[in-house]
């Protein structure tokens, strides 16, 4: 008796079960890879928190480094230096990046614009040490001094393309209708950009700045060649200046045990600041997208 059309032959049944098994294996592999890939995050963050949290005290934030052999001491100069250098870098890179982004989003239809867009994407991959070497040659040599100013310029080299490219995407999210409505009311284009487009994009633009700050705070190599680092509190842009990242780098490589502890504490602070900034930016971006829809 022949089988009914719907029942399966033995070979096709075997093939089906093989397909099912390989599918299971594949799905399991993906689960394992997914978890495996995120393990380093847990390891690193967990370890930094465990090693770093014990050293944090009032003195850690208010004092400058202790002399070798003495216990205690803090890294207040690194917090102030990081704020000074990244603050100046923001001052330089945000206007430059924003203007370039306005060009790309509001006027950027031609061949020149697509070249700028492409090259600013490529520049996102500039090795950070290269920014240090360039600014060392241009600024440190000319002024005969390592300085916070040079450090800020080195960070600007890295942050400008980031802000330009990310802000363009944000500005493009502003609904076209808003621009058309403003133009219909007789507003000139510059006024449309300044009074309608940019205010509408302001929360998204804040996020790009947050991300750029996070990137700038974490960079070590460019400030190593330009700001050098210092043991003292410095508020003068023309003098060598410490940053959190430089302090971690120097203490990590030193042979002094108490300095290693401080390096872990500094790493914890840096990690918390950077992660809070990027998580906030991410959250705000997601919310902004939802609101735009």
């Amino acid at each position: 008796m022949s089988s009914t059309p719907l029942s399966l032959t033995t070979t096709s049944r075997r093939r089906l079960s093989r397909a099912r098994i390989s599918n299971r294996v594949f799905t399991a592999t993906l689960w394992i890879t997914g978890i495996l890939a995120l393990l380093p995050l847990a390891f690193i963050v967990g370890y930094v928190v465990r090693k770093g949290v014990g050293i944090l005290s009032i003195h850690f934030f208010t004092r400058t480094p202790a002399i070798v052999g003495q216990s205690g001491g803090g890294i207040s100069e690194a917090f102030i230096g990081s704020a000074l250098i990244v603050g100046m870098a923001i001052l330089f890179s945000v206007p430059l990046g924003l203007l370039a982004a306005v060009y790309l989003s509001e006027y950027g239809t031609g061949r020149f614009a697509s070249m700028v867009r492409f090259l600013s994407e490529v520049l996102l991959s500039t090795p950070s040490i290269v920014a240090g070497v360039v600014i060392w040659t241009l600024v440190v040599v000319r002024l005969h001094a390592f300085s916070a100013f040079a450090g800020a310029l080195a960070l600007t080299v890295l942050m400008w393309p980031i802000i330009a490219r990310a802000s363009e995407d944000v500005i493009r999210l502003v609904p076209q209708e808003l621009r058309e409505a403003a133009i219909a009311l007789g507003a000139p284009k510059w006024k449309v950009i300044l009074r309608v487009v940019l205010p509408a994009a302001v929360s998204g633009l804040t996020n790009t700045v947050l991300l750029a700050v996070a990137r700038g705070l974490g960079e070590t190599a460019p400030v190593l060649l330009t700001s050098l680092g210092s043991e003292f509190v410095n508020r003068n842009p023309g003098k060598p200046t410490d940053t959190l990242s430089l302090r971690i780098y120097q203490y990590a490589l030193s042979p002094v045990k108490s300095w290693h502890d401080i390096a872990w504490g500094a790493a914890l602070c840096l990690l918390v600041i950077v992660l809070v900034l990027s998580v906030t930016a991410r959250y705000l971006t997601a919310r902004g997208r939802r609101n735009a829809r």
Partner: protein
Amino acid sequence: MSLTRQTAEVRAPMEGSRRARLGDVLTKRIVAIAASGVLALLLLIVVVLATGGGKALHKFGFGFFTSTKWIPTEEIFGAAPYIFGTLITSAIALVLAVPVALGLSLFVTEVCPKPIRGPIAALSDMLAAIPSVVYGLWGIYVMVPWMGTTLEPFLGRTIGKVPGLGALFHGNPNGGYNIFTAGVILAVMILPIIASVSREILSTVPRELRDGAYALGATRFEVVLGVTVPFARAGLVGASVLGLGRALGETIAVSMVIGGFNGHIGFSLFHSGDSIPSLIASNFNEATTAGAERSSLIALALILVVISLAFAALARLLVRRANRQMRASFARAAA
């Protein structure tokens, strides 16, 4: 977009306000200058490095790239070990990171339950946000000892015995400060970058194609292997090349764990070495300007930036073309 421009043109002749027109011209000019600044920046980087490195390149000529000796006291500078160190650490990173990153992005787009999809993507982006120097610190105190005492001796005993391939995993791990450790740390660092670009690429594969395959009775495995991945291939290659570009230029974490080049040249990944960025980071501030040392370091920076930006450009082109193809085929499917 086109509507705006039309409206503006129609309005222009009627409009009397000269100030408004002047404002428009001025605005356009200012933002265009800022945009050209991005091009100028690239040009500036290349010109500054070429000028600064000129002395060394002129003095040593092509030998700069092939010589393996770097002796500041005798004014002898050869870049070969550092170029090699850069390429080999990045290659290790790529080999280790690409499969895991691809797995992670497929996990997020295909397998993982919807509610935890966002959080997983967020965690992977957090991994990308960890500063290089923190990786380096963790590397020195956790990775290096573990590599030196546990993983690398183990690899030496097992893969090290295989003829041919074994040469890579041979010899004394040097306490863990070596090329292999640097490659592993780099792998962790570029993983989230490759994963996030791949994720974007994979999520743009048209639903219709995958649904069609599912409707034909294909399993998830068959859909991913037969439809999703082939369709997104160019973009996935682009994502990996982007990660490679990042690995080539990574500085601080590598310089903290790679050990420093000590003149020994061999196949083994267990030797300490230097990459171009790690050499610059550890020697630049102490270098003498009188001789050719500083100029040699600047010439190395030039080589580095040319290589990594070339890979970055290639990657962006691949990703962009992949996106365009996808949009085109999506339009075809919709029509």
